[in-house]
C-alpha cells in the first residue's frame, strides 16, 4: 500500500471507530418515550436505582405521571434529615445522577414526595 492510501485508510478507520463509540450523556437525561436497559420502569410510575447500593454518580429513575417539583429526602439511621433536593420532573422517566461525596457512608432512607405527599420510600446503603 502506498503511504497516501495508508493515511486515508487509517483516517477513515479512526472516524469509523469514533462513530461506533458510545455517546456520553450529561448527568440528567429526560427520556419522555422509553428508557432502555436496566433503568426502565414498566409501570406508569415508579422509582428505580441503578444498583442495590447508591454510589457516587450512580443513576436513578423517577417515573411520574404529573410534571412538577418533587422532593428527594435523605434521612440517616436516626431519621435525621441529611439532605433534601428539589427537582423539576417531567412527565414520564426522569433519569438523574445521585451524588454521594457530601454524604457519610451508611444506611439511609430515601423518600420521594410531592406537595407534602410521600410517593416512594426506600432504604438503601450509600457509599
Amino acid at each position: 500500500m502506498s503511504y497516501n492510501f495508508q493515511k486515508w485508510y487509517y483516517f477513515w478507520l479512526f472516524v469509523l471507530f469514533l462513530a461506533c463509540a458510545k455517546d456520553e450523556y450529561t448527568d440528567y437525561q429526560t427520556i419522555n418515550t422509553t428508557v432502555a436497559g436496566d433503568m426502565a420502569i414498566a409501570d406508569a410510575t415508579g422509582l428505580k436505582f441503578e444498583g442495590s447500593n447508591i454510589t457516587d454518580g450512580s443513576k436513578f429513575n423517577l417515573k411520574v405521571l404529573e410534571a412538577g417539583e418533587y422532593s428527594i429526602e435523605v434521612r440517616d439511621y436516626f431519621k435525621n434529615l441529611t439532605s433534601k433536593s428539589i427537582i423539576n420532573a417531567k412527565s414520564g422517566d426522569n433519569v438523574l445522577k445521585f451524588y454521594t461525596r457530601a454524604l457519610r457512608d451508611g444506611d439511609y432512607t430515601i423518600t420521594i414526595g410531592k406537595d407534602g405527599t410521600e410517593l416512594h420510600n426506600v432504604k438503601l446503603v450509600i457509599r
Partner: protein
Amino acid sequence: MKKILLLLTLIPTLALGQLSSSTDGVDIDLLYSGTTDDANKLLSKVQVNDTIVVKLKLDNLSSTNSITYVHVDVQYNVNAYARVDYSFNVPTGAQTSNGNWSGNGMKWSVNPNYDANDLWAQWSTQGGSYNEVAGWEVDHVEAIATSNITGNYATLYFKVKDAGDNHSYTDNIALTMARVTDNSGTSEYVYGVGKVRGYPTMAITHIPLEDLDSNIYIQADANTNFDVTKVGVVVQKNGTPISNNLYFDSGGQINVTEYITTSTDNYTLDFVTSYSSTEWEALMDNVITISDVTLTLQELGKYGHGNVGTVFTTGIQYSAVDSNEDRDLTPQDAYNLLGHVMGTLDVIPDDGTGIFNNTFKPMKKADYNSWSIYKFKNQENMPNSSVVHPITVDFTESSYTEDFKFGFIGDPNGSHSSPVDGNAASSLTAKSYSYGQAIKADGFIQGEWSTAIEDGKVVATLRLLSTDVSALQLKVDYDNTILTFDEAVFNTGNTVTNFASETNGRVNLGSIEQNGGEIETGEVFKVYFTGNVTSPVGLVSIFNTDAANVDGNRLILNLQ
C-alpha cells in the same frame, strides 16, 4: 536489677543453649499449663500463692519401640515452690509412684561431658551427681505399665512462693535425669544415650508477681452524645507503655488487671482515641457550637437578654471557656468562643501534641463533680485534666475501679461533656448556684431545608419556621469536586450578626442576635454554589445544626 541479670543470663542460653530433640527416641517436655484457677494464665502473669500446673509430656519418636517404663527426676527450689500435689495419666493397671528422698535437700550437678538435656546420659554415665544442697528437692516421677505410656503421663502442682528479692529464680523447676524403657518384647529395650531428651522445655524460670488479686477497672461516665468506645487508655509502667490501646467498651469500662501487677511501680493511664485527627476535628465541630457561645455570653452579660451571671453552675463550665487560662472569665473569652464558631479564631490550643490532647479533658470523677466556680475563681489548683493520669490502686480491695468523667474545651453547655453529679460543685460556691450542668436542650424549633437548581446555580435554603430563636448555626457539606461555594445570603434581621466561612467542602454559617431581639423567620439562609450539573441530588448535606433561645440555652433545630 534482678531482671537485668536474669536477662543477661538468658541471652547466652537463648543464643547458644537451644535444646535438641532426641530425633528418634523420647522427648520429655516440662510443660507449664496455667494455674489451678486459670488454665490460660500466662507464666509471666503468675503471682505468689498461685498454684501452677506442670505436665510431664512424653513424645515417643521411635518407630519401633513403645514406652512401658518411665522415670523422670524433677528438681525444684523449695523457697520458690512447694510441690503440693501430683497425678498420673497412665494406662489402666499401671503402677505409679512419686518419691522424694531429698533429705536435707539435694541438687543435681550436671555431667559436663553430655548435654544437660540428655537425661539418660546424665543418669547412666556417671560424672554428674546429686549433692546435698539446702533448698532443693527432687521428685522421682515413675510409671510402669504393660502397654504403651504416652503423652502427658504425670502432672505436678506447685504453689508459688515469694523467695525474697535476692533469690535467683533461674531454672527453679527442672528436669535432671530420666530413664525410659520398653519391656513389651522378649527383652528390655532401654532408650540409650542421646535418646531421652528434655525437649522442648526442661526448666522453668519465672519471677512471680506480687500476690495482688484485685480486679482493676477504668470506668468512664460519658455523655450519651459522645461515643465512649472511641477513646481508651494505654497503661504505662514507670513511664513505659506496657499495653496496647485499650478502648472503653460500650458500658464505658476497661479491665486493666493484667497490666497493673505490682504495688511498688508507678502506673499511669495515657488516654488515646481511635479517631483520626480529621475525625476528632469533626467531633469538635459538633462540640463547640453557637449555643455554647450564647450561654457564655449570657453568663457574662453580653447576650442582651437579661439573667446575667446565673447560667453557669459548675467550675467545669468556667474552665471549658477560659480560653486563655487566666482564671478570669471575661467577655473576651466569650468573644473568642464566638470567633471560633464563626471560623475567624481558633480557641483550641496547639502544643504540638495534636488536637485530641488539646481538647479532651479527662478528669477523675470526684474531682470533676467537685470543681466549683468558687474554686475556679479563687485560684485553687485545678485537678488534673490532661490526657495522662497517674493511677494508684488500693490492693486491699478485691475490686478497684478508677472512675473518670470527660470534659471538652469550649463545651460549657455540656453537649458532649459528662454531666456533673451531686451538689459538690455548687455547695462550695460563694453564691447560691443551683447545681447540675445545663446539658439538655430547652426545646425544639422547626425549619425547612432544601437544595435545588435555581438559575443555573445550586442553591441550599434554610427556612426558619419558629420564633424566639436568637442564635442559629448550620454546617453543610458539599461535593467540592463538582461545586464551588459562591456565597451565603442572610435574611435574619437588621441587628443580627451573621457569619459564613468555607473550609474543605464544608460551609459554616450562622447568626446571633445580641441585642435582645430574635432572628426573623422565613428564608434566613441561602447558600449559593456553581457547578455544571443538572441534578442537585446529594450534592449538599447537613453536617450539623445548633440554635439557642433568648436565655442562651440550646434549642434543637428539627429540619424537614
